[in-house]
């Protein structure tokens, strides 16, 4: 059967190959926009939320992740939660209890001191801590070594929300903040994580 015009299904090896190449080129193009290639190790990012109830972080985070899931291929988001409640927006990505982090081997994004401390208890190579606000200022219930661990552990990379927060964190903990992302922008977060993980991947491989 020849092409009838209405039938878009590839019906020969040549057509199937052409379609596959088109999809590959599209995926490559999308990955390139995030600073990645199809061979990149970065396949998924876990986002840890303390609560799923309404907050600036949860709302904007879920909206941005959903938008990313609609638009992009190549990198997946998964959300891990510490305390369950129905999320304010329908999720388009998988949702796991936090103990599932024991089976997780991709980068994670902690979003508070508590989530960062919990992530540190799992065998996760790199933890990005998106400090949406400098919550250590009002945190009087935590021992100072816990605060130090959340911000200064060698596995933790800090992302700040504002230039003033960056200065405050760097001064308080004598560390370098790896980036500033004003609102939870999933694409910018992936770009930053891709950049940082490529950067830190080399010494690890050398040790191996």
């Amino acid at each position: 059967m020849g092409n009838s015009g209405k039938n878009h299904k590839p019906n020969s090896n040549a057509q199937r190959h052409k379609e596959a190449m088109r999809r590959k080129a599209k995926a490559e193009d999308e990955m390139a926009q995030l600073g990645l290639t199809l061979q990149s190790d970065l396949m998924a990012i876990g986002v840890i939320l303390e609560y799923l109830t309404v907050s600036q972080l949860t709302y904007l985070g879920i909206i941005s992740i959903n938008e990313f899931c609609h638009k992009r291929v190549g990198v997946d988001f998964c959300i891990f939660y510490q305390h369950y409640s129905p999320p304010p927006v329908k999720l388009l990505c998988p949702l796991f209890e936090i103990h599932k982090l024991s089976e997780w081997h991709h980068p994670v994004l902690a979003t508070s001191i508590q989530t960062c401390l919990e992530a540190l208890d799992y065998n996760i190579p790199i933890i990005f801590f998106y400090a949406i606000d400098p919550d250590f200022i009002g945190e009087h219930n935590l021992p100072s070594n816990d605060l130090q661990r959340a911000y200064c552990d060698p596995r933790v990379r800090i992302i700040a929300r504002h230039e003033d927060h960056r200065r405050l964190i760097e001064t308080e903990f004598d560390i370098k903040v790896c980036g500033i992302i004003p609102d939870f922008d999933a694409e910018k977060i992936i770009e930053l994580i891709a950049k940082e993980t490529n950067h830190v991947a080399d010494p690890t491989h050398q040790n191996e």
Partner: protein
Amino acid sequence: MKDNEKITIIIATENNAKTIVRAIESVIGGIRSANKVIVGDNDSTDGTYDVLCQFLGAEPIERDGQTGLPPEFEKGIDSVPIKIFRKQKTTTAHTLNVAMQMGHQGTTIFGFCDPASWFAPDKISQAIGVFQQFPVVACVVSDCDDHYPDGRIERQFKPAFDINRLTQSFPYDNNFLIRTQVFQKLQAGFTEQLQAREAYDLLSRASEIGLIYHIPSPLHTNTITEQSVSTQQLMLQSDQIVQQITAQRRQQGRTSGK
């Protein structure tokens, strides 16, 4: 940047003669000024209303053989209409509601400025940017600077909005901007029975129908004065009342399956 918003800034004064003009000038003199300013005076005894009349050039009027300042007056300054009025002493919440009713027509965003505070030049423009970027945002709050009597200015870092935190304490203040539709959806304004913390109550209710967005920049300055023990107690009691009302409302919402 052009926008189609109509911003009305509401100020409720009560004995703020020293600071009120600075507050008004800050909301009409920014990068993006207010479209209208309404100042309601809650029967000040320190001459606040006289200062307002003088600022706008309101002349005394004669009525029933008596001469005095007009109870209402409106004049444009830098092409921004400024309306002032005075009323018998009630709660600040009531004064704010009266002022809002006067400026409701055509307003898309209400802004509230504490009479002892002043806006940064970009507070209104930044808030408009947030409202335009995120349609889900009901209200915009921000960090601030605290200005102490000794001249010291201290940056205050506020937390991002989180409904769990908001049920425990009120980290923000009376300087915020809110979409007019929020009041339509709430079918109410400020709770007039509250003696203080009316903003805490309003934002708690607004947070149940839209997102509160916190801008992490110091977009206004608060004048810090020493509070009397009775004021501190009143604030504490009001906080507890708001928290109780919020808890009851949530409980009712859960029971009715909302």
